[in-house]
């Protein structure tokens, strides 16, 4: 059902984009090697192979890196879904970074404020996750509301709410008891494990470990996959999804058909916000993560990369799982490249950027595959 004819074309298009990006990335490595005395050509070949092998290039650390990769992919899957769902409704949710921050803040406040002596940690964990999701939904509603009621472009409001979120989070945590003074990491919030709150790992952290060092992997990756499948079903099999997509494709026709397009816009942005925030909450609730609270100058990269993940997956929720993991795979490859060759980490970022750039051609390439040199008959009155 996923792999219908159109779906196959989209997957093929995404793969071709990736291939093109890798090719260009390789050329960049070759050029750098040619023009840098200290780097030989063979280093470039070794470099691209390291990038492509991702965690598997690290030998005995492969399982460890794999575990961390899957853990880090989780928030990206969520922001990717957030952007994809909004896209399906015709909205460009560039506000995922802000929703992400607000979600992280709410989850941390709840999980660190309620002592685990008062409530069972599992209950606090659930409450914190819900708080994060709800906070994100509210934050997503803001651009949705402006768009639906006042017809203000959602991109503008999203960007503003991003920066508002960045400053609100800094303001809330500034001077608060949640700052990690103990480890003198004053730019970070204390880990939730200090309150005995950590997402269950089901022993996967031991499985995915390098020697004695456990990776961060926990069940959140399964939650992400389950949510993606759930959203796929909602968008393609339910009345609700039919309505949301109709609004995205043609607002006027949806209005004509009696759909409440304003409600759908707000709802879609709320869902998008909740998704991005859930990703952030799950990341924080892992227990072992340092959340950087003085965010007023920076926005979380995963928020923006959600756009890439969605684009690469042609907004297919199932595809987002793969595109997100793939992006994190490249990230691992990139850091391995910097660690094991003379290339620096900026080069690996560059290659990732290339692939991302090429993914912009996904729809164009889909058309080529569909052999549509001929224009669509928009209106054949003949």
């Amino acid at each position, binding site marked *: 059902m996923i792999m219908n004819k159109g779906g196959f074309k989209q997957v093929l298009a995404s793969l071709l984009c990736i291939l093109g990006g890798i090719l260009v990335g390789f050329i960049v490595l070759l050029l750098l090697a040619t023009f840098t005395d200290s780097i030989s050509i063979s280093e470039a070949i070794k470099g691209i192979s390291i990038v492509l092998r991702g965690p598997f290039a690290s030998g005995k650390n492969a399982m460890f890196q794999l575990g961390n990769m899957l853990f880090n992919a989780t928030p990206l899957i969520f922001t990717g879904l957030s952007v994809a769902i909004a896209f399906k409704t015709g909205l460009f949710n560039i506000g995922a970074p802000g929703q992400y921050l607000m979600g992280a803040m709410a989850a941390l406040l709840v999980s660190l404020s309620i002592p685990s002596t008062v409530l069972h940690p599992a209950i606090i964990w659930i409450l914190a996750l819900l708080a994060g999701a709800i906070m994100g939904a509210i934050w997503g509603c803001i651009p949705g509301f402006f768009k639906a009621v006042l017809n203000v472009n959602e991109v503008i409001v999203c960007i503003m709410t991003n920066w508002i979120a960045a400053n609100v989070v800094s303001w809330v945590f500034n001077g608060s008891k949640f700052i990690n003074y103990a480890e003198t990491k004053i730019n970070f919030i204390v880990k939730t494990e200090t309150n005995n709150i950590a997402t269950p790992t089901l022993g996967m952290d031991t499985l995915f470990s390098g020697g004695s060092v456990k990776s961060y992997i926990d069940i959140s990756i399964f939650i992400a996959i389950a949510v993606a499948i759930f959203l796929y079903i909602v968008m393609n099999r339910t009345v609700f999804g039919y309505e949301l997509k109709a609004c995205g494709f043609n607002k006027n026709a949806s209005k004509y058909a*009696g759909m409440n397009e304003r409600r759908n816009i707000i709802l879609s942005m709320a869902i998008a916000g909740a998704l991005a925030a859930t990703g952030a909450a799950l990341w924080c609730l892992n227990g072992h993560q340092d959340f950087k609270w003085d965010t007023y100058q920076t926005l979380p990269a995963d928020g923006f990369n959600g756009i890439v993940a969605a684009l690469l997956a042609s907004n297919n929720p199932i595809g987002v799982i793969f595109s997100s993991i793939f992006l994190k795979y490249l990230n691992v490859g990139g850091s391995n490249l910097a660690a094991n060759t003379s290339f620096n980490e900026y080069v690996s970022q560059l290659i990732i950027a290339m692939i991302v750039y090429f993914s912009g051609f996904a729809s164009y390439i889909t058309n080529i595959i569909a052999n549509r040199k001929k224009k669509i008959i928009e209106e054949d009155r*003949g």
Partner: protein
Amino acid sequence: MEDKHNESEYIIELRNITKVFPGIIANDHINIQLKRGEIHALLGENGAGKSTLMSVLFGLYQPEEGEILKNGEVVTINDPNDANDLGIGMVHQHFKLVDVFTVLENIILGVETTKHGFLSKKEAREKVMKLSENYGLNIDPDALVENITVGMQQRTEILKMLYRDNEILIFDEPTAVLTPQEITELMAIMKGLAAEGKSILFISHKLNEIMEVADRCSVLRKGKYIGTVNIKDTTKEELSNMMVGRDVKFAVDKDEAKPKETILKVTNLCVEDPIHKKDAVHNVSLEVRAGEIVCIAGIDGNGQTEFVQGVTGLSHVKSGTIELLIDGKMENITKKSIRYKNTHGISHIPEDRHKHGLVLDYSLEQNMVLQRYFEPEFQNNGFINFKSIRTYSEDLIDRFDVRSGQGPITQARSMSGGNQQKAIVAREIDRQHSLLIAVQPTRGLDVGAIEFIHKEIVNKRDDGAAVLLVSLELDEVMNLSDRILVMYEGEIVGELNPKETNVQELGLYMAGAKKQQEGVNDNE
């Protein structure tokens, strides 16, 4: 080269043109020969391949097979610029003008004369004015396009072609947007152009116009070339027979209307024009009763669109009330949601099928349940019942002869305009309703489909539905309606009985030259 003109009798010849789209052969070995100085009509049903063929000639599509000859020599036309270089110009059905430019600026757009990099409009103006005089194309060169009438916009388009010295002029359904008076003018202009040696290809499915203006007529049916006839040797009946493949009745077969209870009652409705902040509809009151077809006639842009949008809920109503008979009681539905109106008796064939009628990126079957997807028949606990949607849409497609490449799963965008319209009509007529609002229900349809849809609308009337028809087509207004209300500048200026009036009188009301006050005809 010197005796090029003697080489061929035909200025343009299309030979064996074949154009294939996924699932459909749009043009199947078509031959058209255009003589120098003739008006050659191209007649065909919706989806017969007329527009595709013209797009091939104009360089928008590349044919899989066949060749194009100009003056007996094979030419290749890769894009509209090539076509222009060969002297081929086209007036599209929907004009390609820049609204905020003047008429003159639009005419010279793309071929501007410049001096030292600066626009020099003086020569251009002289040339345009000369052309305008020669061909009787009355225009105001300094008026903004957004402020001029549709007729003048069309003359601007014609001047655009003449300004580029085009000698082969393609008119794509040029009369669809014009008033009767403007159509008469256009016919005269076309004859004038032909007399001056221009060769004209005239795409239409209006038989009266073809009979009046064309010299010869080529007929296409389902992508195939049927034949070419001399107009003076043929009849309307023969042409329609060639086009549809069977005899077609032109008059709508219907009995006397037997109006019963009032279904729709509109009182003093005012709808504001969102841009100009004045009343697009001003104090309109009317009633539509069960078992009658009431037609709002008028020239495009006189408030009909806004009126219908006000009634159906697409536009905000400024003042006035709308009442609908629901379960035997008149209910005020002015402030009710569109969903409420949809589910309580209003069916609406919208004016703009792309904007409102269809979700073009949805499949045909998804579009067939656009207002009904949530009904128990089509869902189980919030999950779409794909099977029943398929069965339902297959039934509609079958009954209304909606043609498409891949049946129910065809993307609506890829269907021909006429079949998109048929799909909407099918959906709206089949939906439970006591009031059918049909805005230009046969727009862009051929005679066969028009006959069918008119019959369906009359059937609905006879079944006791109230029908509110909005049409710009005078034939449709005269044939189909039981009562005609003429709208001019946002107000109802006259109520006419189609049996007692004629097209000329109707035209005068539509143009605002005649007006009734409180039922009294104050003119004459």
